[in-house]
């Protein structure tokens, strides 16, 4: 594989994803409105004046963190999660519409095509996350002061990219096993909601244990989404959350590897005799 060819293919995929994304005004709007609603409505309703206690292991300089501030990393995760699943949906749509064949018959290694697809999707995910941050955080800052410095939102860039890649790779893996668009809604419910709610996105995990929900606490602790959120949270305060870095990196590699196997005609679904003669 020539580098020039690889770059051209990545550019082509990113351009296509971007054109389609900016053409779909409702998708663009919902990418911003969804987390904004959580921030302005949910946080306003749930947050208390005394703030939230993030527990023993946290990057904040104070023990009582403002709830608006606490859920911002989780909402970044939400943007990335929806965007990652949207890329997965676009893979399923492309398969139904036949465009996928064009991608899979390109003279490039399958792993590279999927990685390029992942990178192009992540590029859009990160843009959406920053649109949310740039619009919402200054508004919130008019009402409450964050301990997160402005530069902290720049520090989170590598963490957001890695987190976005992990969720995008999960989306690619899911798209291997979804054969029809109609099946997608169910999968969204089984992936998006549990991943988001059973994590540290909306509340510190110690509360689960404190409330006796030990089993949910245990699930939240093995949920890779929790590690992505914490990676972003710690990065926003200029710190590296090592377990988060390891888990998101490993999960990205594992999800992408299995997706590549799934899309390989010699090892994946086709090998199992799926499809129809004609």
């Amino acid at each position: 594989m020539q580098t020039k060819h690889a770059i051209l293919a990545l550019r082509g995929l990113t351009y296509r994803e971007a054109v389609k994304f900016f053409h779909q005004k409702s998708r663009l709007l919902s990418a911003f409105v969804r987390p904004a609603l959580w921030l302005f409505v949910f946080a306003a309703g749930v947050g208390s004046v005394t703030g939230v206690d993030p527990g023993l292991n946290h990057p904040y300089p104070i023990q009582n963190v403002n709830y608006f501030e606490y859920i911002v990393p989780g909402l970044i995760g939400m943007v990335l999660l929806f965007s990652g699943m949207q890329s997965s949906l676009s893979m399923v749509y492309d398969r139904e519409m036949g465009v996928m064949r064009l991608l899979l018959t390109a003279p490039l290694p399958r792993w590279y095509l999927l990685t390029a697809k992942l990178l192009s999707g992540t590029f859009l995910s990160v843009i959406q996350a920053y649109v949310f941050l740039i619009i919402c955080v200054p508004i919130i800052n008019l009402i409450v002061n964050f301990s997160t410095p402005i530069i902290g939102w720049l520090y989170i860039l590598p963490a957001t990219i890695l987190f976005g890649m992990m969720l995008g790779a999960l989306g690619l893996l899911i798209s291997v096993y979804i054969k029809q668009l109609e099946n997608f809604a169910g999968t969204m419910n089984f992936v998006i909601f549990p991943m988001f709610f059973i994590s540290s996105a909306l509340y510190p995990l110690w509360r689960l244990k404190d409330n006796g929900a030990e089993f949910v606490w245990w699930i939240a602790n093995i949920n890779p989404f929790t590690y992505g959120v914490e990676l972003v949270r710690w990065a926003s305060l200029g710190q590296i959350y090592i377990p988060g870095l390891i888990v998101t990196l490993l999960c990205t590699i594992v999800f992408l590897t299995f997706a590549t196997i799934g899309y390989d005609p010699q090892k994946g679904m086709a090998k199992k005799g799926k499809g129809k003669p004609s």
Partner: protein
Amino acid sequence: MENKILNIQSLSKSYGSIKALNEVSFSLAEGEYASLLGPNGAGKTTLFQILTGLFASEKGNVLINNFDMRSNAIDALAHIGVVFQQITLDMDLTVIENLKFHSNLHGINDKEFKKRVIEELEQVNLSDRINDKVRSLSGGQKRRIELARSLLHKPKLLLLDEPTVGLDPQSRRDLLDYVIKLKEERKMVVLWATHLVDEAEKSDTVIVLNKGKIIKKDTPQNITKEYNKDTLHDAFVSLTS
């Protein structure tokens, strides 16, 4: 020695207990235009999916310009231009955006793309629709765009899987004439899958596929003569019934 651009050796593929392809072997030389003729369910699309690397066969080999699809798929795919049965254009993009996407995937740089895209679109009389959304084109125009797209990377082998499905008679004739012109002018190998016998009449070779097996490979004239019929259509009916 003849330069075999497509060489298929003992290809077999099953779907559970259904044998979609059974020991399929044939080869096509430079400048040869062959029709893969078979009734619905004969295994034509399965064969095309294996030829394009979308499916892997259980047994046998596919060599494209001497590159093995199993061990060297990337080099093999670089020599294939393909028009699938289903339209594979992105309806939300313009004609030029669709073609650019393809050329990017094939590593064609911008300068070369600009040159080739004008040439290919002029050949199919669609250069005036370059900035139009694909969604706004007719079925025949979409097919011509797909054909232009499949030629952008200058393949040696052109695969067409029932490309006239859903087209009116004039568009069918235009497509067929253009493919014959390609074969003559560019010395391309063309494999055109169809269940419509009249589309096979102008080809150099007719390959009859039935129930996953090649039951005949010869010129249309020889097949008609061998079965003592007046038309290729009648000979095909005798062969497959």
